[in-house]
Every structure is written in structure tokens, then in C-alpha cells.
């Protein structure tokens, strides 16, 4: 058994903010009680969490682990080690692997690899269409039986409105969320950053904010038509957030996530350096302001990393030629503390919700610090000074714009199924 003692437990699911001891018995939480009042059997290992926050295990709804197929950029083993360092206890991995995770055998392969070498829980997301090609519906029921938690054609949107409608109908019957990478690909064709003054100044081809919001609008309408659970991935534009707000006001089952890089950086930060290239691209100043408002007022359901490793050989090229995506696991919590909590925009409880109860709700599960719940805990500090050094990352890739950034607060220990998988 493992006792996490003297920590400040913050659990939005139970509205708890108190100094509590948490006793873990293998896979399950055995008991949660006032500090010093929990009966501890002989031989129990003790983790002193004094001056630390103890939260339910963080869930990342959006990550790319690159296995199978692109193991030179990341593997389930290296990716989940990076996730553990970032405080995540479970990561949802997108299906755009090679081959695409569009059938149960690929799903089982991913889960087998995670079981063999994963540091944290891996929850695969299945493709919505065969090969994510946007033609035929993938074997979603088979994948669900194998263990997927949602479907998505991430990397691109589900190709047509008709297929999106059909996938939504089908997933409603299977009670799975449909996660959409919202992008009108014709509006975004050839673009490498957000369209605006900066793209115009740099001579880089931009995609307008409407490339995202046009697709979100379409999908919200289809969610109303079908009654499906729609989750908008990596939402970046003000107009998209307004659509989600409208959908929620209508009582539709629509949710959304925002990435740390979109609530931290803006298009004006882009230089001719592919570490600033991701899709959706860094948005305008006013978009970021709106995302911050949405994170505060509850419109945004989750913070998700969109951890997208690309090996240096692929990423270290001209800006135009570089693939989209940056690393995200190890800086997510520290950026959330910096941008959201220390800045006074949201209370710590709300931030924890965005990493725990929020994403859990999207997946239709519960995460809380209570007896008989899974022994997944994220233990972090809000005030220790540290610097993110890419060279220390277990990830196989190095594509982060945050190398060398100094932070106040971040992950200290990550507990998955009662085991400490990362400790600072």
C-alpha cells in the first residue's frame, strides 16, 4: 500500500479542497481521510506530499504517440514516459498512426504495447472513417469492444457533412463521443500559419480563423440534428468558441478542448522556426483572450496537449516544409499555472477540473479522489522554480517552443494504479 500524506487534496468532482491523507491499495483508492487520521497498515510506503497539491489523475484527451508506424518520432514507451513527467495518468492517443487505428486489431496492438511498456494509461481513439479517408465508416463497434474511448479522423476533419452525420448517428447509438479536428480544408489549403498581419508581413501563407469556425458551425448543426456527443478538438478561434457557447446554451451535447500553446502564444510569436508551426496554428491576440475567457467561464471543458512529436530530421527544415505539431505533455501543467492560475484568471480548483473532471466528463467517466476509485493521482507544486530543458525529455522528438522557459510550479509525482510512475 501507498500513503500520500499531508497533501492538499483538490478534487473538483467532490468539490474538495482540504488537507487529507490518501491511502492507495494497488489499483484502487482504499481510504481518504483527514491528515493523520487514516489507519495505515504495517509496511505501507509513505509519500510526503506536504506543501503539494494532490489531484485526481490528469487526463489528456489529445495526444499522438506515433506507434505504430512512426517510431522514430515517438513510441508508446517514450511518449507515456513524457506524459508521466507531465503529470498525466491517462492519455488518449489519436488514430493517425501507420496503419491508421481503424480496426480492432490495431486498437489491441496499441493497448498491448501500452501494457508492455507504457508508463501511464493509454486510451486509444479510433478512426471515424476507414483509413481516416472520409469514405466509409470504420469498424467502430469492433474498436469499442477492443477499448477505444472515442472516434476522430484527427489530423483532418471527417471529410464530408454527410459522413459526419452518419458517424454521429452511429456513435450516438454506440454512446461514443465524436472528436472533430475542425478545419475547412479548402480554406486552409497550403497554409502554414494563421492568416493575419503577421502572416502577411512574413509572407507565409495563412489560413483564416473561418477555416476552423466554418467547420465547427457545421458540426454543431449536425450535433443538433443527430443528438450525438460532439467534442471539438484543439479549439483556437473566437468564432468557434461562440459556436460551442451557443450549442451549450441550447443544451446540445457539445464540448471542447483548448491546448496550452493556444492559450499561451499568438500568431505574433511566430518566427521562421518550425517550433511555432502547428495545426490549428497560433491564433490572433483576440482569439487568445476569448480562449482565456472560455477557460474561466466554463465554456471550455478540458485542457488537452495535442502532443505531436516529429523527429528532428522531419521538423528541422524550412518553415513551409515542416510538419505541423509540437510537444505538449511536459509543459502543459506549468503553462496552465503560469497563464491561468498565477495570472489570477482562474482558481486552482477550476484548473484541476480542466485536467481531470472536465476531460472525464467528455469521455463519460468519473475521476475523483475517493474510496474504490482508481489509484491515479497527480501530485504537483504551485510554487517551485524549475526550467524546462528539452534535452532532459524522454520524448524522441525535440519540437517544443518552450525549451529553456522558466516556470513556477509543475508536476512532482505521478501515480498510476497505485504505482509512482514518475517522481521529481
Amino acid at each position: 500500500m501507498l500513503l500520500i500524506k499531508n497533501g492538499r487534496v483538490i478534487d473538483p468532482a467532490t468539490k474538495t479542497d482540504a488537507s487529507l491523507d490518501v491511502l492507495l491499495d494497488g489499483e484502487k483508492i482504499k481510504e481518504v481521510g483527514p491528515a493523520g487520521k487514516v489507519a495505515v497498515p504495517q509496511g505501507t510506503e509513505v509519500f510526503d506530499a506536504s506543501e503539494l497539491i494532490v489531484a485526481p489523475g490528469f487526463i489528456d484527451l489529445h495526444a499522438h504517440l506515433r506507434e505504430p508506424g512512426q517510431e522514430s518520432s515517438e513510441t508508446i514507451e517514450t511518449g507515456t514516459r513524457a506524459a508521466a513527467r507531465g503529470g498525466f495518468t491517462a492519455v488518449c492517443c489519436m488514430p493517425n498512426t501507420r496503419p491508421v487505428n481503424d480496426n480492432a486489431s490495431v486498437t489491441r496492438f496499441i493497448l498491448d504495447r501500452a501494457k508492455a511498456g507504457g508508463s501511464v494509461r493509454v486510451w486509444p481513439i479510433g478512426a471515424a472513417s476507414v483509413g481516416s479517408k472520409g469514405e466509409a465508416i470504420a469498424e467502430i463497434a469492433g474498436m469499442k469492444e477492443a477499448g477505444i474511448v472515442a472516434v476522430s479522423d484527427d489530423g483532418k476533419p471527417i471529410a464530408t457533412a454527410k459522413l459526419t452525420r452518419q458517424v454521429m448517428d452511429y456513435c450516438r447509438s454506440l454512446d461514443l463521443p465524436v472528436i472533430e479536428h475542425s478545419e475547412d480544408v479548402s480554406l486552409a489549403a497550403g497554409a502554414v500559419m494563421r492568416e493575419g498581419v503577421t502572416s502577411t508581413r512574413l509572407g507565409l501563407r495563412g489560413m483564416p480563423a473561418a477555416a476552423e469556425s466554418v467547420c465547427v458551425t457545421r458540426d454543431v448543426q449536425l450535433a443538433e440534428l443527430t443528438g450525438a456527443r460532439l467534442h471539438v478538438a484543439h479549439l483556437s478561434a473566437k468564432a468557434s468558441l461562440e459556436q460551442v457557447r451557443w450549442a451549450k446554451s441550447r443544451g446540445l451535447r457539445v464540448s471542447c478542448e483548448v491546448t496550452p500553446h493556444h492559450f499561451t502564444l499568438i500568431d505574433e510569436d511566430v518566427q521562421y522556426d518550425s517550433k511555432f508551426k502547428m495545426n490549428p496554428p497560433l491564433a490572433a491576440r483576440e482569439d487568445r483572450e476569448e480562449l482565456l475567457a472560455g477557460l474561466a467561464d466554463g465554456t471550455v471543458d478540458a485542457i488537452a496537449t495535442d502532443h505531436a512529436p516529429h523527429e528532428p530530421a522531419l521538423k528541422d527544415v524550412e518553415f513551409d516544409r515542416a510538419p505541423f505539431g509540437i510537444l505538449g505533455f511536459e509543459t502543459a501543467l506549468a503553462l496552465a499555472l503560469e497563464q491561468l492560475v498565477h495570472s489570477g484568471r482562474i482558481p486552482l480548483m477550476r484548473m484541476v477540473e480542466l485536467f481531470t473532471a472536465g476531460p472525464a466528463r467528455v469521455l463519460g467517466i468519473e475521476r475523483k479522489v475517493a474510496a474504490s476509485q482508481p489509484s491515479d493521482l497527480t501530485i504537483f507544486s504551485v510554487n517551485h522554480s524549475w526550467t524546462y530543458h528539452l534535452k532532459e525529455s524522454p520524448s524522441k522528438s525535440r519540437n517544443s517552443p518552450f525549451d529553456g522557459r522558466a516556470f513556477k510550479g509543475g508536476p512532482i509525482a505521478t501515480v498510476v494504479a497505485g504505482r509512482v510512475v514518475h517522481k521529481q
Partner: protein
Amino acid sequence: MSTKFRDLLALEPLTADELGFLLDQSKPFQEIQKHPLKKLATLRGKTVALAFFETSTRTRISFGAAASRLGADTMNLQAEASSLKKGETLLDTVFNLNAMKPDCLVMRHAASGAPHYVARHLDIPVVNAGDGTHEHPSQGLLDALTIRDRLGTIKNLNVTILGDILHSRVARSNIHLLGKFGCKFTLCGPAMWVPRELEKIAPGTPIRCVYRIEGALEGADVIMMLRVQTERLNDPPLSADDYILLYQLNPERLRRASPKAIVLHPGPINRGIEITPEVADGPQSCVLEQVTNGVAVRMAILYLLISGATETDTHPALQVKSKESANASD
């Protein structure tokens, strides 16, 4: 000013003083172009690598002539002959060129920012000879030199640029250079080529976007034509006839500009599309002077970057000549 120009990647970050210095340094090299014997020995023993990853005729020849008139040797890499098609990365190609020990790399590339990216990895000077739709610094300098020769100043002029501004590296370099000397810009063309964002790319410089050529030419001192790239006519699909109807510079339209207005074009010209032959060959056109000045400007750039010279050490062979231009700085 004691600036040492390490690279010449863009005009945007340079100050008016630095830009004026570059123009002044070009003046003596303009004189050289008039001599029967044009070759100097200044950079004898030096090598200039010309790496053109995007096809170019006049800029490549112009840099080549500039190097050779300074006495330097050149190494040529052209896209067709490059190993990029064999899968080599840009950086590997450049490292291989650099291993042959040139003293300067002049590069053109279809990707905006490619010279900035390369310069971060090289310790020899890098000259941007045009990067994607970003900047074309030597073109901006040669245009300014041409304007100063014709109009006597580059200060406080009304400059109208016509055509596909969004995709023009020439327009950006001109805006960043002339804007620092108080010029006002009118950008004119079809709206998809002249987005409103252009009005904000150079804070402090008045830029307005208009969509009718008649208004754009009123009171213009300088009219800059841009080549209508026929490949661009396909994205978005736009009829050449429509373009001619709305935006072709013909003698009648030119009369709306100041009577002393001059017409510049970076070439190559599409006669009968963006400009009529009467205008292209007329007295207000500066097209061929631009080309001549291009060699002078590029000589100055290569001289400054390779010799590491600053304002205080003008080329010795040119000191007599340069005195007359000592006050020519705008």
C-alpha cells in the same frame, strides 16, 4: 553609425541610417558600370556561392556580374541541378556548399524565411536574393537607388504599387525601405491580392489599400508595377482580360499620376498584360536603369558583407568618386 552587416536577410529590421548607408555605398559602384573597364580586384581570391533554389535569370546573373566585377569567383547551384530532388535537406545542401569554403552565400528560395533559417546555421554572410513571398532586399535597394537618381530624393514620396501585392516580396522590401524615408503607399489590385492586413505590416508607414486604379494613381510620384504571375492567375481563378480591364497601366491611366511620375517594374514584364508597351518603353519608365543599378547595389552588398567594411572604410579605389556622393544620402 558603426553597423557591420553580418547578413542581408531583409530590409524590415534596418534603420533609415543603415539603409541610407547601403544606398550611399552603391553610388560609387554605379559609376563603375559606366567605365569601359568594369573589373576591380577588391574581392580577388574571394568566392561567392550563388544558390538559387528557385529559378531566376536576372537576379542570378546580376549577382554573378556583381561578384565578378569585384574580382570574386562564383560557385553556382541551381535548383534543377541540386540534390534536393534526391531527398537532401536544404541544410545538408547548404552545408555541402559551405564545405567548399565560399566567403558568402547568396540564396534564393521559394520558402519565406529560408535564408533566415540557413543563416542561423552558417558562419559566413548570407544574402537573401528573394525568399518566397517575403522580401527581396537587393531589389528594394536598387529601386530606391533608381528613384533617387530620377527624382533626386526618396523622401516623402507618394508611391503606388499595382498588382499582386500579397504574393510580392518586391513590394514588401520597397515598403520597408521607402517607408522609413517618409513615403506613403497606395496598394492597388484585386482584393484577394491586396488584403487589408497589408496596411499594418509596417507600423508608422501610411499604407492604404484601394481597388480602383484610377484613384490609386492620383498624385503618385512613383508607380511600381508587379509582374502578374500567370501561375497565380489560377489561384484564385482570374481572367487575364478582367485584369487588363481593371488594372493595366496604359498611357491614359498614367496621366492621372504626377507629370513627373516614374514607372518601375522588377521584370520580367508581361507586355500587354499589366503594362502596355507604350508605357513600358516610354520616357517615364525606368525598367532598364533598374537592371543596371541592380549590379551596382549587389556589388555594394557583396563588398560590405565580405570585406566586413563599415561606413568609415569605403573601398579605397573608389574614395575619389565617393566624395561627390558624400551628401547624397537621403
